[in-house]
């Protein structure tokens, strides 16, 4: 809250994802590709295989372009972006881990220099010198992963650091090793998939068959290592976090399941290929494998990010930059005194710092459509009960007055005609809408807070009576403030819930 807020329309999640996804692929590829090049250069030189050497030299040009330029600069790009989107978290990380980053930087410099010399040195250097440079490149690249991995895993599982503040305890945190093995596997897998893609364009023949078979081997070994490490990784996350994820966030858990299916499909596909048709292997298949591999890894990264919710630094800082250690201060004095950069519109400032880092009004995780038809009292309840809503949001830690300011800010920007008017619906359709707006945000169907069971079999009168005393049903459960027509439709819809949601 000490920072200005970058109020851009794209949405923080989208911006971060675009750059991060790209960088994550490129950087893992850079490591695996380096290993692939040196190992194969070693084999080719040992066997005096000139065809393969020429192939590798060509490969290394593309490789150098991608890693030296795109890899390095998107890395810097992520750093720029996190400073813009999450300055407080970046600040906290840098203060704790500046020497980690500085160490990583030394590896980065060696990696870049070695990659250049390797690329320019195919003809200039002796075989031995060239190979040595290749190994230095790979070693430095992998070491820089090993360092960054400590900081990245710290964000999800800071472990004992939360108590001691000790650098090494935070660095070698519970998920450090599984994550390192997993990422190393990913590097190898991506290298294999990329080599498959290049090999698919070779002329059919023995050389192609050999190259395809070998590249497939890399992909499958990398994938196997990764899949095993993922199970280990999941176990290493504190049980409370995984349990809560299973309970409240079906999405990332689904992503993990999905990613396992993708991995299986990928593995099966690649194996089938090696056995069946290494010679005729075409580019379309190679591209499909590449896409599967990326989808798999993307799903993993996404679930990792989601598991961390509502935090950006688990147990330490919320996604909107609010600090856990400051909870009492916020609750006593509110957010406003902490917000250093003010615009004169307190509601807007509060909304930005409390909600806007995850939501937009109309784009990504849009609130305007989600809140259409809501009245002011209900909005106040939603802000104050933010942690109860689906999505594992941070609690709103400001004062009640500030919750009202945020609600007013939203109320002025949303449609507050009745749901029937906005969507031109009635009957059960209206009831379902009313449920989405007034109940489903907290009691999402199919999650642990699904109330279908406790509502089943009740009469319309009972249900209406329940709505009358809604605010006494539980801490944070809002009073029912919708109009009469909406209430009638909602009650009718609630009666269908006991039958599994089907009228």
């Amino acid at each position: 809250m000490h920072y200005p807020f970058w109020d851009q329309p794209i949405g923080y999640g989208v911006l971060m994802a675009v750059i991060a996804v790209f960088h994550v692929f490129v950087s893992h590829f850079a490591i695996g590709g380096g290993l692939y090049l040196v190992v194969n250069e070693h084999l080719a030189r040992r066997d005096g295989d000139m065809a393969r050497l020429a192939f590798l030299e060509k490969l290394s040009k593309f490789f150098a372009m991608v890693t030296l330029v795109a890899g390095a600069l998107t890395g810097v790009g992520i750093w720029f972006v996190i400073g813009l989107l999450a300055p407080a978290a970046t600040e906290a990380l840098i203060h704790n881990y500046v020497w980690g980053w500085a160490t990583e930087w030394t590896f980065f410099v060696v990696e870049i220099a070695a990659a250049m010399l390797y690329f320019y040195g195919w003809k200039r250097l002796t075989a031995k010198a060239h190979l040595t440079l290749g190994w230095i490149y790979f070693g430095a690249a992998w070491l820089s992963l090993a360092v960054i991995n400590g900081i990245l895993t710290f964000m999800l599982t800071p472990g004992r650091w939360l108590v001691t503040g000790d650098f090494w305890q935070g660095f070698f945190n519970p998920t450090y090793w599984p994550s390192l093995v997993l990422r190393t596997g990913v590097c190898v897998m991506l290298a294999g998939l990329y080599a498959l893609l290049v090999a698919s364009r070779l002329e059919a023949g023995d050389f192609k068959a050999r190259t395809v078979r070998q590249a497939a081997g890399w992909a499958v070994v990398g994938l196997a290592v990764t899949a095993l490490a993922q199970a280990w990784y999941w176990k290493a996350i504190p049980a409370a976090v995984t349990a809560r994820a299973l309970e409240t966030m079906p999405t990332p858990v689904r992503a993990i399941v999905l990613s396992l299916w993708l991995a299986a499909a990928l593995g099966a596909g690649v194996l089938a290929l090696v056995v069946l048709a290494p010679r005729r292997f075409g580019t379309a298949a190679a591209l499909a494998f590449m896409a599967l591999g990326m989808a798999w890894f993307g799903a993993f990264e996404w679930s990792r990010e989601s598991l961390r919710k509502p935090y950006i630094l688990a147990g330490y800082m919320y996604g909107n930059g609010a600090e856990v250690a400051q909870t009492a201060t916020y609750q006593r004095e509110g957010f406003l005194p902490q917000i250093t950069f003010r615009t004169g519109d307190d509601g807007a400032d509060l909304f930005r710092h409390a909600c806007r880092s995850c939501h937009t009004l109309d784009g990504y995780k849009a609130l305007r459509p989600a809140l259409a038809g809501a009245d002011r009292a209900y909005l106040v309840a939603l802000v104050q009960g933010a942690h109860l809503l689906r999505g594992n949001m941070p609690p709103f830690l400001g004062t009640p007055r500030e919750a009202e300011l945020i609600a007013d800010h939203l109320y002025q920007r949303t449609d507050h005609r009745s749901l029937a008017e906005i969507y031109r619906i009635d009957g059960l359709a209206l009831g379902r809408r009313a449920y989405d707006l007034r109940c489903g945000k907290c009691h999402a169907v199919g999650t642990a807070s699904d109330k279908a069971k406790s509502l089943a079999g009740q009469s319309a009168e009972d249900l209406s009576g329940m709505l009358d005393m809604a605010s006494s049903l539980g801490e944070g459960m809002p009073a029912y403030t919708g109009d009469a027509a909406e209430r009638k439709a909602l009650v009718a819809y609630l009666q269908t819930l006991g039958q599994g949601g089907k009228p």
Partner: protein
Amino acid sequence: MTLPDYHFISAPLWLVTALHLLTLTLHLAAMSCLLGGTLIALWTGARKAWPAPDAAGFARVLPAATAATVSLGVAPLLFLQLVYPRQVYAATIVSGWFWLAVIGAVITAYYAFYRTSFQAHRTGRVSLGLLALAALGLLYTSLVYSSVFALAEQPALLRALYAKDQSGWVWNPAAGAYGLRWLHMVLGALTVGGFFVSVLGRKSPAMAATGRAAFVGGMAAAAAVGFLYLISLDADLGAYMRTPAMPVLVVSLALSLAALHFHAKKHFGLSGLCLFLSVFGMVYMRHVLRLVRLQGSFDLAAWRVAPQWSPFLLFLVCFLLMLGVLVWMAKLFFRPDEDVTEA
């Protein structure tokens, strides 16, 4: 449970400052070779003043210079963010889009350099269009850096700008505070670039001559603009005069002249050393000016220092290893080899 507090610096301030200034000097030296060299190559290219093989040879150095500039830029930005997070993040956020566009500009320049270098290798000719594109990317980047980091030194302005516009499309309007400073940096780059060109082209009369001209002319112009900038500080000038920056200025000027002197005598190593030290002096003066400007809103000494010695030691060892490996690899690459053909 009390959570750890992150408001601390994990090494003595002098150490962090020394590392910051040292790595920034290295970055600026590489950047100046790159930017100055590119501007010179454009200028001579337009007049066809260099023999084609020389120009092509020079173009082939540019990707490596870009890699050096980028890699060496990471460390000083890290230390800057460590010590001045409140100022730096705030300024980058207010100018968010311009700041982010730097990544695009540098990627563009980088690819343009690679293309130029591959083309030069294949055809023996240098594409002026690509060079100009790259130069544009670099100039944009340098201008954004100057304006954003100047904004970081003006907390009151920063607040006022943010209150009016939160979109990240704010360009620092106080051009007086950074226009001359930026120009001084670009001219400095031309100076260092001139030195770089003259040393690389020491066997080519044409290259050596342009390099020398840019070295001498750039230095004179940079000194003049630097002087104007100093005067333009008005309100801060008094305070600035009372800091150690003034004696450093005198020493830096002397070092610059010494660099010219040794260069004329063809003692390139000594000349380069003097030039590097004078850039270091400039970096130091810049640092002092920042502190003067931030007086009242920021006190360096207020940081809680809680050293993390073992990670620092790890860094130090890796840093020394890095230097060793870099030197060793360069030796390997550049030694006159038995079975060398051509790269």
